[in-house]
């Protein structure tokens, strides 16, 4: 009897999911048959005017850090929240990591790789408005450095090089910097997070020091994401 019940339950679940799939299928089919391409005035405006208006050739960066920079502030806050939750969940005392020891060749290679990673990260951060990359990507690359250290050496060593408190500080400075850069617009008489409209202007598109606030915002987000991801990784791995 209970087996029959169990089987019925399973069938019921599968049925639910399939019904839902059919709904989704019809929905997508209907939407797809609609002619909705004519309505993309917003994206067309971004593509045709975006470079002049924001001064960044990377349109994704101009959307992320200029048109919709407020979203970016929100998601930066989400990472900060996540990092704070993880740091708070994990006890402050040192936890041991599963004991893996690597051959010395691994250790040596890591020390060689790290400078390159740092340079790559810095490049991605600083040229985010000109080429593929940006704060998030650069931040992730930067965070790989402490992660690699953690994996190859140990949590202890990694936290000896980059102290948790310092990472936290960098993260908070990144977030505060973002907000303060945004407030710069308010102080110069225009709106919050204004870059092109504020008196400091956009510069000429294509140069490093152009696009108003975007490079600096990129830098701040990069610091924040890098520190945040490092904290998250270390906290997850510290638990046994």
């Amino acid at each position, binding site marked *: 009897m209970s087996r029959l019940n169990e089987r019925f339950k399973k069938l019921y679940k599968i049925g639910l999911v399939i019904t839902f799939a059919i*709904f989704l299928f019809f*929905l997508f089919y*209907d*939407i797809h048959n*609609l002619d*909705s391409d004519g*309505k*993309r*005035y*917003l*994206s067309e*405006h*971004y593509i045709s005017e975006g470079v002049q208006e924001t001064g960044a050739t990377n349109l994704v960066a101009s959307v992320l850090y*200029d*048109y*919709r*920079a*407020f*979203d970016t*502030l*929100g*998601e930066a*806050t*989400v990472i*900060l*929240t*996540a990092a*704070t*939750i993880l740091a*708070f*969940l994990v006890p402050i005392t040192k936890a041991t990591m599963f004991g893996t020891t690597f051959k010395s060749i691994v250790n040596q290679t890591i020390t060689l790789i790290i400078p390159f990673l740092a340079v790559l990260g810095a490049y991605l951060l600083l040229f985010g408005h000109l080429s593929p990359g940006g704060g998030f990507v650069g931040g992730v690359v930067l965070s790989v450095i402490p992660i690699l250290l953690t994996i190859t050496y140990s949590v202890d060593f990694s936290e000896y090089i980059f102290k948790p*408190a310092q990472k*936290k*500080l960098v*993260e*908070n*400075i990144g*977030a*505060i910097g973002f*907000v303060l850069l*945004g*407030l710069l*617009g*308010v102080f110069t008489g*225009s*709106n*919050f*997070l*204004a*870059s092109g*409209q504020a008196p400091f202007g956009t510069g000429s598109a294509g140069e490093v020091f152009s696009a108003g606030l975007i490079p600096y915002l990129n830098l701040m987000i990069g610091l924040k994401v890098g520190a945040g991801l490092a904290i998250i990784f270390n906290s997850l791995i510290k638990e046994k």
Partner: protein
Amino acid sequence: MEAAVLVIISPLLTAFFLGISRLYVKKIFFPLVTGSAIIYLYLLILVITNSYPAKVYSIGDWGMLGINLMVDPFSSLFLLIIAILFLPFIIFSMKYTKFIKHDYFIFAYLMIAGISGMVLTADLFNLYVFLEVSSLSSCALSLQKKTDRGIEGTFKYLIMSTLGSFFILLATILTYYLTGTLNMAEIPLAFEDIPFKIKSTIMAFFVFGYALKIGLIPLHAWLPDAYEDSPIPYNVLSSGLVMKSALYALIRILYIMFGIDFLDESGMLTIVVFWGVITFLIAHCLAFQQSNLNRLLAYSSIAQIAYIMIGLFVGTEAGLIAGSFHILNHAIMKGALFLVVGIFNYSLTAVEIEDIKGLGYKFPIISFTFVVASLAIVGLPPFNGFMSKWLIVEAALEADFVYAAFFILVGTFLSLTYYLKVIVTLYTKTEEELLIEEPGLSLKLPTIFLGSLCIVFGIVPSLPLSLMNKIPKFLLDNGEYIRILLGG
């Protein structure tokens, strides 16, 4: 309206600075928290008093190209709730929290920032982002005690709310796909020539996603679990603001994006009212069974939210006013109730109904506050809950939802059964010698403040209603909202 954006930014900044203060300068903790709470209160009042006529603030001066914030009476209602609850919450938590205070206040400020962001934004994706900020930090707050039950409840909360978020995100993406914009004023214009079926499916996703966060039955199961072992001051904000902000977003989306005509045509109004009736009847039955005060109040929150849903979804002007009034009242009443439970919990770690036996004679004023707030939440005169329930029933009758109106009264009776159970226990004498830690003034004062608001708003309901009377103008007719947003 620089203040509008500062309402979102200032708690964020406070949270970030608290993060630094936690590591390096612990001394500035107290002035930072209280000082910024007071500044925040000032900002809120500034925004609320300027909320009519509605104003638009464009972030980065992009106008229609970027993200806009909009302050209108409905959003200022939520800012008013924040203004009423936040300072008492801060003062109460200062004394109450025995765990790591810094983290607790960081999350609290992040949550408030997320909620005010949700309330003010006029952009669909921005709404989603701030929803995530508030729900993630809300999870973090419910985790603060790090007990087994707390962690389990938080996990359930996290799973359910993430599921809801995904559906909201799915609907948001599809909306962008169909309209090519995320601005809440342009979407309804572009929505006009979208086929009926597509629109109603997208609406179903929105409703489902937000209903998970609001906790309508049977999507409610995480809610009492998340409340059971979380810090009690957090529960005040959780039931008063987190649930409500999801409700706010739902109302915003449905009334502005889809419009009242579509809601009526697709039958959404009928469905939600029926759903609300089912919800509060079951929630009252379940609440009677609880022996844990937090769970009892959680179930009662579900029921009260259902009343609010009925008020807001009967689709008339009176209904919107009544529902909004009940949002405010419920925040106050539930806040007072939770704070009283918080005091009991602080003084003698009581959470079960059995534990509070005889406390009515030991804490006369606090217990009286409890009695007042619970009678108010049941909906007996002359307290504020009665006024808003009266308005809701009147609106439901006016809109021909006679069964809903009738069952609201039945629900009132059912809710009395369990609140009275608690009150009777409170005033039953016991022989036991209780070890009591004296609650200081900083615990008592916020509680009494909220309790007295219950009486004041019950006797002079025109005080808050003067703000709420302007709400329907911006919701019932989305043209007004669109005009102001586009014009700004």
